[in-house]
C-alpha cells in the first residue's frame, strides 16, 4: 500500500516536473489549475473528509490568501514571502473561527462557514482603501513571478498537501480524526481530545488555500472580490473530494483531474449553468456514490478479487 502510493506519487511528480518542457502556455495554465484544485481539495479533505465537519466556505481562505499575496507582492515583498504570509494569515483567521464554532458539536461549523465566503467578498468590496474595492488589484508584471515559477510553486504546494495527507492518514492524529468522524462522543470517552484535534485540523487546513490564493493572484495578475471569493470554488473542492473519495489520499487528486478536465471540455461553454451543474453533481454524488470513485473501486475489488 505504502509503496504503491509512493510509486503513483513519483510517477505523477515526474510527469509534472517535465510538463513545462513540452506543454504550451495554455496547457501549462490548465495543469496549474488542476494542481490548485488538488491543493484545495486536500485542504477540504483534511477538515471535512477526515472529521466530517463540512466546510461550505473554505474558499474564504483562498480569497484572503489571494489578497494578502497580491498586496504584499505589490508592497515589495519577495513572492515566496508573500505566499508564506498568505498561508499564515489564513490559518491565523481559521483559529479564532474554529474556537468559536468547533467547540460545539453539530451543524454550527457548517452554518458559519456557509456565510463566511460571502462575508469575505463583501468586505473585499467595501474595504476600498486596502483592496481597491470592486475595481480589484492589478499586479504589475514586473513584480509578478512568471508562469513557470507559479506553476512550480503550485506543484510544490500540491505535493506538500498530498504528502501531508499521506502522513496524516497513517498517523495517530489521522486515527483520532477518523474516530471523531465515526462518533465524536465515543472518541471523547476513549480519551481523544476532540476539540483540540478539530482545531488543529481546521487551522492546518486553512494554510493550503491561503498559499494557493496567493499563487493564483500572481498567476492571473488581476484579482477582484468576485473572482477570488468565488462561490463556485467552494462547491468545486467539495465535489472534487466527493468524486474521488473523501478521507482518502488519492481521491482528491483523481477528483481534481476528472472534474477540471470535464469542466474544461464542456461547462466552460455554459458559465451561467456552471454552479447549478456543480450543485447537481454534488447531490448525485452524496446520494449514489458517497464513498466516491475510490470507495466504489475498493468495494468492487473486494467483491470480485
Amino acid at each position, binding site marked *: 500500500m505504502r509503496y504503491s502510493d509512493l510509486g503513483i506519487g513519483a510517477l505523477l511528480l515526474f510527469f509534472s516536473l517535465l510538463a513545462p518542457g513540452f506543454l504550451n502556455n495554455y496547457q501549462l495554465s490548465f495543469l496549474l489549475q488542476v494542481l490548485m484544485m488538488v491543493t484545495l481539495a486536500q485542504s477540504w479533505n483534511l477538515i471535512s473528509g477526515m472529521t466530517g465537519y463540512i466546510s461550505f466556505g473554505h474558499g474564504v481562505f483562498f480569497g484572503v490568501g489571494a489578497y494578502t499575496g497580491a498586496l504584499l507582492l505589490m508592497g515589495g515583498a519577495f513572492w515566496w514571502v508573500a505566499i508564506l504570509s498568505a498561508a499564515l494569515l489564513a490559518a491565523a483567521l481559521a483559529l479564532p473561527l474554529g474556537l468559536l464554532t468547533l467547540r460545539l458539536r453539530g451543524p454550527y461549523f457548517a452554518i458559519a462557514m456557509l456565510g463566511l465566503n460571502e462575508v469575505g467578498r463583501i468586505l473585499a468590496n467595501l474595504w476600498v482603501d486596502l483592496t481597491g474595492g470592486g475595481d480589484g488589484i492589478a499586479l504589475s508584471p514586473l513584480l509578478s513571478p512568471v508562469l513557470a515559477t507559479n506553476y512550480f510553486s503550485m506543484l510544490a504546494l500540491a505535493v506538500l498537501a498530498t504528502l501531508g495527507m499521506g502522513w496524516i492518514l497513517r498517523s495517530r492524529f489521522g*486515527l*483520532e480524526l477518523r*474516530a471523531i468522524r*465515526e*462518533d465524536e*462522543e*465515543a*472518541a*471523547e*470517552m*476513549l*480519551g*481523544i*481530545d*476532540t476539540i483540540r484535534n478539530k482545531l488543529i485540523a481546521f487551522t492546518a487546513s486553512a494554510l493550503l488555500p491561503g498559499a494557493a490564493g496567493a499563487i493564483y493572484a500572481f498567476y492571473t495578475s488581476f484579482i477582484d472580490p468576485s473572482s477570488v471569493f468565488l462561490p463556485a470554488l467552494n462547491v468545486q473542492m467539495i465535489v472534487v473530494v466527493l468524486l474521488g473519495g473523501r478521507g482518502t489520499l488519492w481521491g482528491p487528486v483523481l477528483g481534481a483531474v476528472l472534474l477540471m478536465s470535464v469542466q474544461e471540455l464542456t461547462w466552460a461553454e455554459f458559465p451561467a449553468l456552471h454552479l447549478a451543474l456543480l450543485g447537481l453533481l454534488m447531490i448525485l454524488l452524496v446520494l449514489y456514490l458517497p464513498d466516491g470513485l475510490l470507495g466504489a473501486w475498493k468495494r468492487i475489488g473486494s467483491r470480485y478479487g
Partner: protein
Amino acid sequence: MSAPPLLHLQQLDASYGPIQVLFSVQLEVQPGEIVALIGPNGAGKSTVIKSIIGLVRVLRGQIRLAGREITGMATHHAPLHGIGYVPQGRILFARMTVRENLEMGAFLQQDPRERRRLVEEVLDQFPQLAARAQVLAGHLSGGEQQMLAIGRSLMMRPKLLMLDEPSLGLSPKYVDQIFAQLLVLRDQGHTLLMVEQNAARALEIADRGYVLELGRNRFADRASALLENEAVRRLYLGGV
C-alpha cells in the same frame, strides 16, 4: 472508615443549560461492588453518570474518585482517571471492525504491542467477539454490540466501570448473558456502577442499590433489602 470510597458523589446538582435535573444527589461506590442505580424514565440516572465523566455540567457538589476530586473534568480525561463508560445505546464505531473498536478502547496506550496484548486479553474474555473480530461493529447483533461496548471499555483496565442500561433493547437470551458477564467481572475484582430500567434484574446481581426519582435520592440500601422493600416493589419493580 479508613479508605475513601472508590466513587463518592456529594450533594450533586447538575443541569442541562438552564434546566436543573439533579438535586443534591448522594452516591457511593466501594471497591469491588456492583451498585445499581434505578428509577423511572427521566429520573436522571443517565445524567448522574454523564456528570461524573463531564458530559453534563455540574452546578454544585463534589465528585470524588478514590478521595481525589474530579468534579467537572474533561470527558477525554476519564480513561486517564481509570473510569470506563458504556453509554446508553452502546455507541460504537459502526464502520470499524470489532478488533479496531477494541483497539480504539486502548487509544491512550501508546505502545502498539501492549495494545494488541490488551485486545487479545479482552477477546479471550468474550469468545463470541473473538469469532467475529474482523466483522464491522455495525453488522453485529444487539447483544454482540453490547458485549463489544463492554469489552472496549475494559481495554484501559478501568478502576470503575459505569454502564448505562446494558440490557436495553436486548432479547432475554442476551440479557442473561450480559448480566452473567457483569457478575464475572465483579468476581474478577472490577467495580461496577450500573444504571438499569430492568430494576429487578439489576438488583439481583447488585450488592447495593440507589433509587432515584425526579433527580433526587429516594431510597438507598443493600440490593437484597431493596428487593424486599414494600414501597420499592410497588413503585419500581412492578410487583406486588
